[in-house]
């Protein structure tokens, strides 16, 4: 490493934020600056919204799933209208999206994808994982879902129907995984601890890997 004229010692790892902005990054900055300049939105509002999004994590979705497992009435309302049931549970929706909750059974396994971009149930799960936004998953989930699931370590029996829900517009999807056997005496907190992000996307089942 070359000599520095400052005294403190630190590794020089390239920070991606320091790289030159790409075409779309420049466009986003330009649009954002214009919106601020014309007073449509304020800088504080943007910062606040980032904080709101970061406050949503898969732990929220796990609580919803655990509550649905524990309370049959809530489960019915959740399947009838995902958004209304989540709002009743205290989870606000900061956008105009609807939520359809897809129940896995011993006959049906649900998988969610957004082939056009990265639509994701952010209000209940937070930001999507990088692979969910990448083209290989988006292209293959609708074309060879069983091969994709196998790569995630999830084998779905041949007599189980796979339903892939492609989120294109106003609807977001959340998978309600199957409650594992032997959890009859679990508390909601213990149940929620079993539920991971991937089980609510549908690339894993609760039993895939402990």
């Amino acid at each position, binding site marked *: 490493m070359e000599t520095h004229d400052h005294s403190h010692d630190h590794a020089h790892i390239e920070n991606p934020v320091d790289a030159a902005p790409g075409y779309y990054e420049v466009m986003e900055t330009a649009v954002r600056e214009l919106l601020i300049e014309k007073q449509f939105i304020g800088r504080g509002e943007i910062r606040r919204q980032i904080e709101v999004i970061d406050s949503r994590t898969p732990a929220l979705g796990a609580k919803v799933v655990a509550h649905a497992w524990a309370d049959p009435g809530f489960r019915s309302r959740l399947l009838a209208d995902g958004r209304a049931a989540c709002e009743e549970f205290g989870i606000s929706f900061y956008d105009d999206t609807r939520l359809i909750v897809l129940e896995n059974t011993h006959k049906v396994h649900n998988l969610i994808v957004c082939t056009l971009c990265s639509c994701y149930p952010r209000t209940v799960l937070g930001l999507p994982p990088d692979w969910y936004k990448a083209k290989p998953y988006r292209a293959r989930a609708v074309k060879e879902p069983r091969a994709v699931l196998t790569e995630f370590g999830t084998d779905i029996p*041949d007599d189980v129907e796979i339903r892939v829900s492609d989120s294109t517009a106003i609807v977001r999807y959340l998978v309600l995984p199957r409650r594992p056997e032997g959890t009859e005496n679990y508390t909601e907190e213990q149940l929620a601890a079993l539920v991971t992000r991937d089980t609510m996307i549908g690339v894993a089942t609760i039993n895939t890997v402990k």
Partner: protein
Amino acid sequence: MQDSSITAAKPQVSLLKALGEDPSLQVGDVVRVSVRYPVGHYRVPTYVRGKQGTIEAVIAPAINNEDEGFGRNSGLKGYYYRVAIPLTVLWPGYTGQPTDGLRIEIFETWLERI
């Protein structure tokens, strides 16, 4: 006696619905996704265009994004439908199970009744 009071609360006239106020398609209808390639970004993936499916659910009406997205303040609402398409229909030579299927929400302007 109690029941009649409930009936009386409803309007006694039949209302005429405006065009598009009610969904034009029903659950179970067989539809084809239009094959059109308008310039711009439309939320209908090309892999489903021209494919045949079945209406599985009517989704509550939403603002016409295809107008709004292009700067036209249409103020009009339209219906999205949850459409079921078997993966064997989408992908000839699909090697999974014949029951495997896609579910996708499509705006009414892209659906043709068969």
